[in-house]
């Protein structure tokens, strides 16, 4: 049976269409989810896409965190049952929700960074990166103004020690992220957040590479061995 991967649209989401396209190219059925509906429609996994949910008012992701759709998502993600990928603004929402540690702050340079970005995949032990080899370098798109990942030293040490740093900027973080961290996972490995955009790098015509597709094929491989959320 084809896996069903939900993509949430918040007011101000930009990359929900590209995320749904990436899900389809990977071989799954994309399911549009609406921020105001407290219903995940029985999907097997969820992508929180990039953009500027609620206009980035207050802090990036601070309002989206309390959207009705998050009511079912947060406990299912926290328990380890529901794979969730947060990209860019989605990563910010996952940090604001405390599903992931740390926070995303203004780029050190104050400039919006928009470019193809080399990343080093540090961990294949997550639901979203199993198809990559640790140490593998990939090129996807980075486009963000508040992408500087930061956390206190104890949290960073714990992330490193437990293999929860998932991707790192290769050749230095263009936004000043602590320890060049581009993405992290929760303790179960089902929740992953990253600032760069794998969904913009899934086909040669429109992206800098097809390197991003692995995030979406990884979750399908993961789901092939697990049970849909909400199923008995």
């Amino acid at each position, binding site marked *: 049976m084809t896996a069903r991967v939900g993509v949430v649209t918040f007011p101000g989401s930009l990359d929900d269409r590209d995320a749904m396209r990436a899900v389809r190219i990977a071989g799954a059925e994309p399911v549009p989810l609406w921020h105001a509906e407290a219903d995940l429609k029985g999907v097997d996994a969820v992508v929180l896409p990039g953009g500027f949910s609620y206009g980035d008012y*207050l*802090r990036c992701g*601070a309002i989206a965190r*309390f959207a009705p759709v998050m009511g079912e998502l947060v406990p299912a993600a926290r328990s380890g049952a529901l794979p969730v990928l947060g990209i860019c603004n989605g990563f910010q929402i996952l*940090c*604001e929700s405390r599903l992931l*540690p*740390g*926070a995303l*702050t*203004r*780029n*050190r*340079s*104050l400039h919006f960074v928009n470019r193809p970005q080399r990343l080093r995949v540090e961990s294949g032990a997550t639901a979203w990166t199993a198809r990559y080899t640790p140490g593998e370098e990939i090129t996807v798109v980075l486009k963000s103004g508040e992408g*500087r990942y*930061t*956390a*206190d030293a104890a949290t960073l040490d714990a992330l490193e020690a437990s293999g929860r740093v998932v991707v790192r900027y290769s050749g230095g973080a263009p936004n*000043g992220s602590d320890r060049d961290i581009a993405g992290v996972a929760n303790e179960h490995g089902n929740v992953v957040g990253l600032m760069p955009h794998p969904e913009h790098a899934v086909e040669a015509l429109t992206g800098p590479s097809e390197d991003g597709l692995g995030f979406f094929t990884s979750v399908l491989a993961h789901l092939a061995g697990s049970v849909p959320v909400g199923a008995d």
Partner: protein
Amino acid sequence: MARVIVDVMLKPEILDPQGQAIVGACGRLGFSGVEQVRQGKRFEVEIDGEADEARLEEVRRLAETLLANPVIEDFELRVAE
């Protein structure tokens, strides 16, 4: 009706590039004595009735939950005169 002021600031150890940019502008404008600027946010929260301890506790919970991100920010709260 009472008004409660909530000041939110980045924690001292969190980099504040906006504050640094303001320091740069100070120098260019001739305000030569400015050594450091930290930029924060001020919220003015109007509440029903008196700002008694119960209502202040409610605003404090609001600040922890929504107005500030305790991972990177501290907040202070006071009743406006």
